[in-house]
């Protein structure tokens, strides 16, 4: 049984790249397959960009989990931005308030085995992603 956590800031586009790199290292470290690694890195990239663009920046805790019965990586993104008024609508494909394709949230969820989102208007958003073996 072991877990190790690394917390990174998300304040710039370069930070998003750094998040991808750390997620890759953690995912490879716990022995996820190449496809599973690619999926969780891509999901992390989507959410990190949302945190930066819509949440006004924030941070992510990247955790490698090796405990019975599961092995994998878990990511928790937090921002203190404006929050999401209608989560159901935001999760839908093709919905966007920005200039994106609107595949970020729904797409990221499809790439994960666990996904949860909590948001409070005016105080911020927390999103949890995980990919288990």
């Amino acid at each position, binding site marked *: 049984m072991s877990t190790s956590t690394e917390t990174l800031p998300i304040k710039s*586009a*370069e930070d*998003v*790249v750094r998040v*991808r*790199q750390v997620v*890759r290292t953690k995912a490879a470290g716990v022995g996820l397959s*190449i*496809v599973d*690694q*690619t*999926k969780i*890195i*891509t999901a992390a*990239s*989507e959410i990190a*960009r949302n945190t930066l663009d819509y949440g006004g920046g924030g941070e992510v805790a990247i955790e490698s989990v090796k405990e019975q019965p599961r092995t994998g990586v878990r990511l928790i993104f937090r921002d203190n931005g404006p929050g999401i008024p209608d989560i159901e609508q935001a999760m839908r*494909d093709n919905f966007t308030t920005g200039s*994106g*394709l609107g*595949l*970020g949230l*729904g*797409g990221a969820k*499809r*790439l994960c085995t666990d996904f949860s989102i909590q948001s409070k208007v005016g105080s911020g958003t927390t999103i949890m992603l995980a990919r288990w073996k």
Partner: protein
Amino acid sequence: MDRIPILKFGDCLLVTIQVDMHDQLAMALQDDLTARLVKERSRGVLIDISALEIVDSFMGRILNNIASMAKILDAVTVVVGMRPAVAITLVELGLELPGVRTALNVERGMDLIRSTVDAETASDVDLD
């Protein structure tokens, strides 16, 4: 700021993406490519992404944009070397890049550009 190098090869432009790009770098590539297309009057753009470990929705959108902009500038874009895991992830994400032509490797990609450009040139002649 860093730039992704663009090579000119005959009437084609070649780009090999070998670093994990941040968003501004990808945007800069889009700007540079369209500028070079006009300047060199190129007919084809080949983008090698065999070194890329992920393509997310932003990068997917950039690839789609480059292909659409090149089309307006009378050039064909071919993306080559996408890794299987990247392809699976993009499909799962819902990004099938319908506007982008693809090939397995640089050689096949150049063949595809050549045959597409030649076919277009031939049909231009027919119209006259």
